């Protein structure tokens, strides 16, 4: 037996072992993987922005703090049908969800808890801002929803949670997120709101309609 015989014998094993997993099963799992990536990316981006905004607020002198007590969120409807949501605090998710649904937006809102397990990601490739939903990247968050621009059968998922960030005192621009506790004595831990939005399949169990 020479080297060519060995190579031929090994090569001959190709296509003799069959992978039986159907492609539909692989794609279904792929959708779940992609949804997880999207939410992580979105949450990561917004967390950094939120951390910077909160750190600036924390480090401002006391006389710059606002004195008026504002509502956790406000919903306003524009003449062109656009619905603007201003979110200052992650409170009363059920109330916000009810109000948006009453305004005709199929919505699922969760603050500080896992997303509604009945919700399924809207299929296909979509870009949030081109699908009728714009979310500002500074605090307070402003969400602009154009119900008529939502894809057919799509609803809006809005999720918020708190995360921890730390900022270097005296240098608010050097604020960053870390899973570790801060080691530097000049760092300060801040609790920051993280907000994400996405498209889900509209259904009575998930978005109310």
């Amino acid at each position, binding site marked *: 037996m020479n080297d060519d015989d060995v190579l031929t014998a090994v090569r001959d094993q190709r296509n003799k072992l069959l*992978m039986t997993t159907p492609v539909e099963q692989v794609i279904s799992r792929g959708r779940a993987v992609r949804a997880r990536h999207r939410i992580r990316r979105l949450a990561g981006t917004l967390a950094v922005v939120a951390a910077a905004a909160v750190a600036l607020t924390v480090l401002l002198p006391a006389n710059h703090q606002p004195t008026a007590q504002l509502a956790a969120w406000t919903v306003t409807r524009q003449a062109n049908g656009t619905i603007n949501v201003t979110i200052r605090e992650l409170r009363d998710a059920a109330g916000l969800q009810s109000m948006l649904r009453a305004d005709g937006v199929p919505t699922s809102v969760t603050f500080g808890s896992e997303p509604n397990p009945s919700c399924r990601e809207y299929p296909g490739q979509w870009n949030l801002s081109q699908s009728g939903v714009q979310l500002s990247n500074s605090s307070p968050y402003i969400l602009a929803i154009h119900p008529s621009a939502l894809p057919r059968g799509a609803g809006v998922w809005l999720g918020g949670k708190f995360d921890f960030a730390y900022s270097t005192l005296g240098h608010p621009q050097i604020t960053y997120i870390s899973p570790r506790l801060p080691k530097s004595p000049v760092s300060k831990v801040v609790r920051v709101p993280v907000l994400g939005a996405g498209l889900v399949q509209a259904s009575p169990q998930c978005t109310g309609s």
Partner: protein
Amino acid sequence: MAVRTHALDFEEFYRGSKDECLLTVLVSVGDKEMAQDLVAEAFARAWASWRTVSRHPAPIAWVVRTALNLNISRLRRRREISVPDPGRIERQIAIERVADSSVDPRIMAALLRLPARQRQVIALRLFLDLDTSHTAEALGIAPGTVQAHLGRAIAALRNDLVCERNQETPP
């Protein structure tokens, strides 16, 4: 329309390369069911990042590399090392051979007796038909090292298979 094209491209890729990927990963992990799970998960991740993976110079190598990385992560989580058992895989394949496969159990067992890196090089070069540079890239080693592993692996396989043949031949 873009989504539909995306799906069709992936399905074609999956159907055309899944069996070679399974065989390649099986040679590394030594357990058919585990290999099938790892390859399915790697393909799912390829689907999730298909826009990037489809532009990879060797998408099939990306899938195999991902499956092998998943296996490493799995072993780390379990905090134990699983060493492929040539006898076990030979028996397993021997049973399955009757049902649905004609993989030669002697060759699979001989492959599993090779050191892990040599097995990976053989699988990538011979099962996936990757050239030296793509094999080196997939394994994160130098092209010269791929050639060295390939030469040693072929020599070891030749000796192994010749010994087995001599043992089977009556004096």
